[in-house]
């Protein structure tokens, strides 16, 4: 009960932030009736999906301060569980998605236990390696479709149990619900015991340990929470795209994007991941469709994207949220 109250309690944010959140909620609710085309709707769904990923990453990467670059493997676990159980045994989405989350949780404990012996760069590269190993296995594993991937069987009629709809408005509202679930969870998380312990570990691990905090265990817990979030998003990707392969759900680029969006938005802050993906997903998409389609300009969209990453990393490592706070302090 107390936890629920904490989750819905936004009073410790400033007035501007609360008004912003309210306006944003209204925008999300009425968005499908604003008459945007299909392309904008796809971008919006992508934005919500990446916010979900980013909020998950933020537990371990932002609050915990661990540079985690292997989240794509959990996207893959979530997506493959949903897809495979549906193809093999016709398991509905609402059963297979929780199973996927459970598998991701179990796997993250197994991987996390040795992983968190490592620190700094060793840790960062080890997370990339674990993700690449899993991707390589899936690329070569014939049983799960190997490099060709799997197509989900399409139902004849729109089916809520299997999350298959004709109109992507349904997907939009579904991911929006997930997004808010994640948002409330994060609001609770940042005030929870684990949240405070993680921030202490981020600031000074030795001091935290001397106060009796089991740093390794805290990190493993946060890592598993992040993995569960990401697996939910992976399950959504499977039913939304109706097709997955190891390159689309387990690629290193995806891991990096997840971490990058949170970092650019502002890691370790409540709004960072949301701002980051609100900024990068449309940029990525619009640049891609605008420049990518023009002959002779292939790659220019990514060059602009990359230049932006470099500038923000060099100028304000605390991300866009860091820049906003800087201005606020000057104003006050």
């Amino acid at each position, binding site marked *: 009960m107390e936890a629920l109250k904490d989750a819905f309690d936004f009073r410790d944010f400033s007035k501007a932030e609360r008004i912003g959140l309210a306006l944003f909620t209204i925008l999300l609710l009425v968005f499908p009736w604003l008459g945007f085309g299909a392309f904008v709707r796809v971008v919006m769904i992508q934005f919500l999906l990446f916010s979900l990923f980013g909020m998950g990453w933020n537990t371990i*990467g932002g609050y915990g301060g661990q*540079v985690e*670059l292997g989240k794509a493997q959990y996207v893959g676990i979530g997506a493959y569980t949903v897809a495979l159980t549906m193809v093999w045994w016709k398991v509905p989405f609402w059963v297979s998605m929780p199973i996927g989350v459970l598998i991701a949780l179990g796997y993250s404990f197994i991987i996390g236990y*040795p*992983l968190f*012996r*490592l*620190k*700094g*760069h*060793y840790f*960062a*590269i*080890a997370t*990339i*390696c*674990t993700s*690449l*190993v899993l991707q*390589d*296995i899936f*690329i*070569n594993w014939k049983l799960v479709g190997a490099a060709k991937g799997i197509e989900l069987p399409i139902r004849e009629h729109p089916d809520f149990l299997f999350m298959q709809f004709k109109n992507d408005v349904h997907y939009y509202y579904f991911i929006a619900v997930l997004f808010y679930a994640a948002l409330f969870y994060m609001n609770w998380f940042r005030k929870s015991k684990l949240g405070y312990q993680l921030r202490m570990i981020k600031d000074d691990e030795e001091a935290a340990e001397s106060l009796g905090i089991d740093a390794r265990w805290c990190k493993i817990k946060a890592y598993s929470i992040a993995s569960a979030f990401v697996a939910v998003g992976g399950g959504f990707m499977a039913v939304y795209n109706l097709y997955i392969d190891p390159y689309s759900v387990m690629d*290193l680029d995806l891991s*990096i994007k997840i*971490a*990058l969006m949170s*970092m*650019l938005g502002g*890691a370790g802050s409540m709004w960072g991941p949301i701002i980051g993906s609100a900024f990068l997903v449309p940029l990525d998409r619009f640049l891609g469709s605008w420049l990518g389609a023009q002959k002779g*300009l*292939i*790659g*220019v969209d*990514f*060059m602009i*994207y*990359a*230049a*932006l*990453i*470099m500038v923000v*990393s*060099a*100028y304000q*490592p605390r991300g866009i949220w860091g820049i906003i706070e800087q201005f606020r302090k000057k104003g006050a």
Partner: protein
Amino acid sequence: MIVLDALLQGILMGLLFALVALGLTIIFGVMDIVNFAHGEFLMIGMYTAYWTSLLLHVDPLITLPASGIVGMLLGLVSYYWLVRYLLRGPMIAQLFGTFGLMLFLRYLAQFLFGTDYRIVQKGLLVGKSLSLGPFIFDWTKLSAAILSVLAFSLVYYMLHRTKLGKALRATALNKEAASYMGIKTEQMNALAWMIGGGTVGIAGGLLVNFWYVYPTVGLLFVMIAFASVAMGGFGSIKGAFFAGVLIGMVEMLFPVFGHLIGSEFLGPHFKFTIVYFAYFVVVVLRPQGLFGWKH
């Protein structure tokens, strides 16, 4: 016999992996930065060798200095325009800064050269091989391995015998103490990036003789270089050398092993997977790497 052959081929390949890893480990040792763009430096080195040899109609081996110089310039420019500013931030910003550089270079190459796979077709050594008893070596690989050892020894000599190298190592050991002795940290950092870029540029020039170059070629090599550097111990030059050779051997022996025991699952498509896996096991059991002194 087949095992011995694979072992020798693996050592040849491993020597080149070691040269790729050398720059990464020097940069890390001096300034605690992992350069994600390292594989893209390699790619640029490969393209440089490819285009100069194609346009000037000279042998790709003669264009090696060009690759080296382009690599050095690339290292210097990256340092002065980007990395200098990244140093102020936390580790994650540094990682993403160099990651941005990697994306930038990759898509710049794609923009300039397209996504075609290119390889040096003509050259003194291309397509020729040396047979020593039952073993057959491609001259391109053999010369790459020999030159790689040469470059390695040169850098090793420079770091351990010259005044400049000693200054660089002093900065790596303790930046502040070194700066009290009048060693300018800024210059040493730039030097590290110059050596790092130069060596990996040369590695690229050697590699393009027997490996296709395309804009995303860097990823595989940067992962192998990460694995070698971490296995050997971040910042350790000796470590990078042995770990590179070790990885080369593992990568060649693994498919042979799978073939011998008749397992389809242990085929060549997993030869790099096993490298990542080996990395994971080594760093978990020995987090400072095989020869590490920093972590």
